[in-house]
């Protein structure tokens, strides 16, 4: 038995080495994680036939809540924010340039390229970080990361990329490290309540936690920014991360900290091949 295991391991190693002259070695490793992750949810929610449905968050598994959600998505309150975001996006900076000058394809239909691992700076580049980098490189002050203008800009950019699929790469060792860091964050217990992200969004999801059903973790990154009924406004993914951490009484990290960016990287990789569905409405 032990021999067999060793043989298998050896074969896998050989296979990996031969198949990829190392460049997509990390993609392969992550792909195995994705497969396990999907199997977990497939077993948990056998009624969800296609993992793509998880782009709708908790509404993929809660039929009653889904009806109300669809009704609100019919003319969602974030539409006004998309308009605001478009205006901001098109308004020139003091130097005459616009956001379009900082992004591929003028910033349109590119949401699914974020987050990505920037091999020049060896860090996870999120859309919101890229927006502020664009501002500062054009002599403008950076925006706050949780809500308001940055959420509106992000909402507009997401709205132009709907139904594009996430295709996140893990280009090098540093990227894989960032991925592992995010993964570790996700499965680590935190706060006075001693809960990991995975406790609520994998183990408990589908059943009630107090009065609420926590959403399945798969697809978490697809719908942001979101207009939460609880907030009464649009907010970014990192604002939500902060809220989640506070809910378990763990001191939150700063929006766009390395911790949250790595977590976003991990979560987006777990949402690989899923549609961009942001902005969207959540309770």
């Amino acid at each position, binding site marked *: 038995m032990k021999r067999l295991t060793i043989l298998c391991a050896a074969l896998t190693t050989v296979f990996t080495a031969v198949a990829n002259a190392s460049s997509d070695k990390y993609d392969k490793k992550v792909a195995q994680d994705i497969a396990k992750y999907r199997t977990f949810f497939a077993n948990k929610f056998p009624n969800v036939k296609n993992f793509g449905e998880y782009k709708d968050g908790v509404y993929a598994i809660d039929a009653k809540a889904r009806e109300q959600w669809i009704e*609100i998505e*019919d*003319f969602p*309150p974030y*539409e*006004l924010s998309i*308009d605001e975001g478009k205006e901001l996006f098109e308004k020139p900076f003091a130097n005459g340039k616009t956001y379009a000058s900082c992004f591929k394809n003028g910033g349109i239909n590119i949401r699914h390229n974020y987050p990505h691992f920037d091999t020049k700076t060896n860090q996870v580049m999120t859309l919101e970080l890229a927006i502020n980098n664009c501002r500062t490189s054009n002599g403008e002050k950076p925006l706050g990361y949780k809500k308001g203008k940055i959420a509106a800009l992000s909402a507009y950019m997401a709205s132009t990329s709907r139904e594009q699929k996430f295709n996140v790469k893990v280009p090098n060792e540093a990227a894989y490290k960032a991925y592992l860091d995010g993964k570790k964050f996700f499965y680590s217990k935190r706060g006075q309540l001693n809960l990991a992200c995975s406790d609520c969004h994998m183990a408990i999801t589908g059943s009630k936690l107090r009065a609420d059903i926590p959403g399945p973790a798969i697809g978490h990154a697809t719908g942001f920014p979101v207009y939460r009924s609880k907030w*009464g406004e649009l907010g970014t993914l990192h604002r939500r991360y902060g809220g989640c951490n506070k809910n378990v009484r763990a001191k939150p990290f700063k929006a766009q900290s390395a911790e949250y960016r790595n977590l976003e990287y991990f979560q987006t990789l777990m949402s690989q091949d899923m549609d961009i569905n942001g902005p969207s409405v959540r309770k």
Partner: protein
Amino acid sequence: MKVKVKAKEKDGVVKAKVLIKHAMETGRRKDKKGVIIPAHHVTEVKAEYKGATIFSAEFGAGVSKDPFVKFQFKGKAGDQVSVSATDNKGQTGKSEATIK
């Protein structure tokens, strides 16, 4: 006040959807210092079609933030429908849409 209207006709019936950007303060909420935020909400919404009012609504503070209302009337594609809103501080907003 920002008002957005979408209208679509099918079989002679126009479905018009209205979204208004408004805080809809109830007058019962307190700010961070514990001071009550005065009531500030939309009170009236009026829709006009071919020079006549075809629908109107009165809102109290019990209507959700960023109010949404969907109403229907007999009309046809290509025509205009205009919607105006007023709040209890006398601020107004107006928007027009071509029926699709």
